């Protein structure tokens, strides 16, 4: 059989070239794989969901809704939840989306903290930033699909931000929502469904493929010790069988842990809020939008002006301008911290106090902005929240910088030097 295939497809050459590619070993590389496996889980569970979901709001009734007329999309969710293991698969789809975004975010933090975005990997960093943005957008477009009161209300927060974009707001909402987002717009759910299951996943698949191909061509940044073992070489295990075995183990552990949580904590039971009604429940957007929602909470309503027929209001400042500036800042990182030398090895975060403390400061900004999303619940004043959002991240960054320099003394700003013969020096 092998010979028959080899005669026709030269699979021996494929094995020698592709399956013996060296994969360096380091625990931090698994964050990217967790992101990838989340996407694969989303596709697999998504296929099951598409087989049973009806993207329509036509009124239907049946035993699952107790004879009450509900939108077909809502009813199909009740149907999916009634199938054996169906509720777990739907919940797994929901959890995998959250995990993909969380893992991609942590993966980006790791890349940033270890300087792996530097020459020659600037392009892959940019692709990675777009992947994270696209993953969030894909999750957002799926949010309204269950068409319960909660999903519709939460989606409205994002819809209003998009619609507030100067000059192009209406065009954006027409493209994404087929007009105004309302319980009676029959075109919204089919439009969101098409974008969620076809266009955005296809774009994600294309970008993920590009991300992986670039990574394979440019090779991983390696742990620093590899310079001591084989300078100028990629020290790693072959893709098959060793790396494939590790990937298999990771996928199974990921699926096992996520499925357990998905079953024990159903992420979005539609019965909790019921089908859309005239009453708007008090809801918040998903956690990855909560920081934007927090900024919107603290921007005064009178920060508004008109320019060339467009309105620049709080939703523009908090929902569009700040996220856009952050995305542009992220894209610029490899060019602001440019290295002429090729980056071959992981840098130690402790040896780069400015970069590390900057990341800590940015993390604190996200945490404080998210906290601002609970302004009403916690009874926090606007003044206090402005201080928390603007001052605390800066103070945290400065304190981290001082601490790192104090702890590592003269070693700060110096990458670990390895001795090519004999024992390596200090480690982290």
């Amino acid at each position, binding site marked *: 059989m092998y010979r028959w295939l080899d005669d026709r497809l030269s699979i021996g050459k494929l094995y020698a*070239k592709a399956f013996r*590619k060296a994969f*360096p*070993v*380091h*625990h931090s590389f*698994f964050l990217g794989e*967790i992101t990838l496996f989340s996407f694969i889980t989303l596709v697999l569970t998504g296929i099951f969901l598409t087989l049973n979901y009806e993207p329509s709001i036509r009124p239907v009734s049946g035993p699952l809704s107790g004879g009450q007329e509900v939108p077909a999309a809502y009813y199909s969710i009740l149907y999916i939840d*009634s*199938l*054996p*293991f169906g*509720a*777990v698969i739907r919940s797994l789809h929901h*959890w995998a989306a*959250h*995990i993909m975004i*969380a893992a991609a975010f*942590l993966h980006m933090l790791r890349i940033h903290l*270890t300087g792996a975005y530097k020459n020659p990997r600037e392009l892959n960093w940019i692709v990675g930033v777009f992947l994270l943005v696209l993953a969030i957008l894909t999750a957002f477009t799926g949010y309204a699909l269950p068409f319960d009161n909660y999903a519709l209300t939460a989606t409205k927060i994002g819809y209003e931000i998009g619609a507030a974009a100067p000059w192009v707001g209406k065009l954006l909402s027409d493209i994404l929502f087929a007009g105004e987002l309302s319980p009676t717009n029959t075109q919204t759910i089919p439009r969101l469904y098409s974008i969620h299951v076809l266009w955005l996943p296809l774009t994600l698949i294309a970008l993920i493929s590009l991300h992986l191909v670039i990574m*394979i*061509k440019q*090779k991983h940044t390696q*742990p*620093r010790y*590899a310079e001591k*073992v084989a300078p100028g*070489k*990629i*020290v*790693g*295990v072959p893709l098959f069988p*060793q790396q494939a*075995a*590790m990937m298999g*183990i*990771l996928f*199974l*552990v990921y*699926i096992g*842990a*996520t*499925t*357990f*949580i*998905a*079953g024990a904590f*159903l*992420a*979005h*039971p539609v019965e909790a809020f019921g089908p859309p009604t005239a009453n708007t429940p008090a809801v*918040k957007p*998903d*956690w990855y939008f909560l920081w934007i929602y927090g900024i919107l909470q603290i921007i005064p309503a009178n920060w508004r002006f008109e320019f060339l027929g467009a309105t620049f209001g709080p939703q523009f400042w908090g929902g569009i301008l700040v996220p856009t500036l952050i995305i542009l800042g992220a894209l610029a990182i490899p060019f602001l911290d440019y290295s002429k030398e090729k980056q071959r090895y992981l840098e130690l975060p402790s040896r780069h106090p400015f970069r590390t403390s900057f990341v800590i400061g940015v993390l604190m900004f996200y945490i404080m902005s*998210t906290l601002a999303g*609970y302004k009403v*619940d916690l009874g926090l004043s606007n003044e206090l929240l402005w201080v928390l959002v603007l001052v605390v991240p800066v103070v945290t960054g400065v304190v981290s910088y001082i601490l790192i320099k104090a702890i590592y003394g003269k070693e700060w700003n110096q990458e*670990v030097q390895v001795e090519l013969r004999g024992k390596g020096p200090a*480690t*982290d």
Partner: protein
Amino acid sequence: MYRNDTVVPYFALVFSAALFLTAYLNDRFRVVHEAGAVPHLTVGNIGLMAFALVLFVYGFIGLLSNWLEGSELRPGRHEPEPSSLPMVAGVVLSLLLVMLSGFFVRTLIFANNPEIGYYNATTLQAGVFGAMMFILALLIAIYKKFFIEEEVLAEDEKGDFPW
């Protein structure tokens, strides 16, 4: 970060547990159990648990990677050291997997019963399925550790793959 150490994975596991606990213990993030309402998670709770899950999987695989692959690679071939114990563990785990598979199918048949209103015991279903996945992962880990010949390559930086 210098090598494939266990410090960061251990820290990730501790942090993961802390996030789970925060999600559970904080009243504002607790699972909603109002009278007559369907229990559901708040967005904050989901966020904390999503990060906790990522950190758990990352910490677990990080420690496993250290056990299976070591903290530093050295080019060459390394013979495995098979013994009776991993073989026995493999047989026991395989039997357990078969038992759990049967039980999992039983939970699906139970859920497909119109007399009980197609009730899904989701925690049980997911628990059994999750345990099956963990056992499969353990079986591969044991096979990799004790039965696969390990090879470490020192590949040229300018490889011609994929072009």
